């Protein structure tokens, strides 16, 4: 079985986001960037399945500008076998990304495609579902447990009401939740080894996909700020404030 894992480069989850004064977006210059956190879970799961002898190859793919390649390199350092970097500048909508990934799937013919359930920058939560629609493959979104059984997967999904278990036939798409596993750290020797692993570069323009945006971002602004609160001295004062001042209990 061959697993393709899609990874995205985003502003690190610990960075306090600052909105640009001209309202065109958020500040990304000199800001720490990382792999989208649930994409790390996706890579980890693929590597674990390979280590268990149930997959033969793990290929990491990213779609984005020059520096996006860092995320593929990181995937190689934690166990992916080779990488693909589809180069394209500017903001891509999930629909465009899923069309590009469809071309990569046509070329690579993986049995499974894994990715994070949501990117923490645009918070869209679309790409995996869109890709599975374009391929007409089954989708297991928000996966917190995956059992590989021959040509099927049994996947536990986190839903609002609790947990749901589904069985999907391969080929299939899985979008990964943060609770799926604990991503490993890359060891120094593995980081060195990853530098020798191949990354194929493909220009998005060579794939024959229309990636032009359908959405216009008219403005990005700071959310309204909460007014500063107070510290209370003890529990009695807290309950009294909730009862008589805020009037919520």
């Amino acid at each position, binding site marked *: 079985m061959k697993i393709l894992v899609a990874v995205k480069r985003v502003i690190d*989850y610990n960075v306090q*986001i600052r*909105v640009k004064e001209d309202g065109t977006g*958020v500040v990304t210059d000199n800001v720490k960037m990382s792999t989208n956190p*649930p994409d790390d879970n996706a890579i980890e799961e693929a590597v674990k399945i390979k280590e268990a002898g149930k997959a033969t190859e793990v290929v990491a793919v990213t779609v984005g500008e020059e520096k996006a390649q860092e995320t593929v390199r990181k995937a190689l350092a934690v166990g992916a076998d080779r990488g693909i970097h589809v180069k394209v500048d500017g903001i891509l*909508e*999930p*629909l465009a990304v899923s069309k590009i990934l469809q071309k990569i799937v046509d070329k690579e013919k993986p049995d499974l495609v894994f990715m994070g359930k949501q990117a*923490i*920058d645009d*918070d*869209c*939560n*679309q790409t*995996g*579902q*869109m890709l*599975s*629609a*374009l391929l007409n*493959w089954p*989708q297991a979104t*928000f996966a917190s447990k995956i059992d590989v059984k021959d040509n099927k997967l049994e996947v536990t999904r*986190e*839903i*609002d*009401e*609790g*947990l*749901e*278990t*589904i*069985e999907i*036939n391969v080929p*299939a798409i899985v979008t990964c939740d943060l*609770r799926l596993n604990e991503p490993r750290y890359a060891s120094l020797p593995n980081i060195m080894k990853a530098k020798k692993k191949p990354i194929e570069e493909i220009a998005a323009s060579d794939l024959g996909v229309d990636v032009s945006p*359908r*959405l*216009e*971002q*008219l*403005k*990005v*602004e*700071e*959310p309204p700020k*909460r007014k500063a*609160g*107070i*510290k*209370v001295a003890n*529990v*009695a004062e*807290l*309950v009294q*404030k*909730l009862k008589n001042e*805020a009037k*919520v*209990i």
Partner: protein
Amino acid sequence: MAVLLIAEHNNKELRPFTLNAATAASQIDADVHAVIIGQNSADAAKQLSELPVVKKVLSVEAAHYENFTAENFAPVVVKLAENYSHIICSANTFGKNLMPRIAAHLDTSQVSDIIKVISQDTFLRPIYAGNAFATIKSNDAKKCVTIRPTSFDPCESTGGSAPIEKVDASEEFSNTKFIKREEIKSDRPELGTARIVVSGGRGMQSGDNFKLITEIADKLGAAIGASRAAVDAGYISNDHQVGQTGKVVVPDLYIAVGISGAIQHLAGMKESKVIVAINKDGEAPIFSVADYGLEADLFEALPQFMEELNKLNTIQK
């Protein structure tokens, strides 16, 4: 052209956020039609027809719709879509799973998780865990929009009498099979719609200690929430998680206990009307959004809190 709302239900009754999504749909266009896809879901369809904002109900029933599988639902909506300008659904796990599948089939760039309808083609949505708001204009002919349920009031649920029209089912998608659903049954209010939420974090130190939270929640008629750290640590099940990748809640009162206040948690609760933080670390970021902060050891503060509540003559429910 009319707007098509996708109803969320459990085959017996509508799920509550359908009412919030109906409000959002009616803000886009007064002509709202609603599709309900299920099995033996006639009662829920009738309920849908009674929402005054809904002008027509389309009901599709088949055995393969019983478990709300997106692969089965999407073709039904795609087929209906030609008559509609917008497809609307809640941005909860139901809508998040389903809508992008519809949007891709329609070759439409979806607008996710909107918090405000500015015009028929322009919407406000949070990005970066709510640390920025983006105004987005869609230039697609057909628009697929998911709405953040807590940002729209539920519509009236009675008084309407829309006609219910039967629609043919689509073929079954055979490569996805439903196995089971483990729903955690509780007498408490639903987390997403509760007036009061009491949440615990890593500071709770164990699942057992959550009984301190449970007691207070029962007293206040509150739902129980948790930070991702508490869910990851196994103190409580995933359906309680509040935050960027969990649920977004906007209660009148949110009490955060032993929660440090990571950006990802704040994303799920900082729109709450009144926020209380109880934490022994006075520097914890949760205090920056709290209206009332109490710097204290929660294992002392929670029993005292319960005592103080017991002293009150009345408690709002």
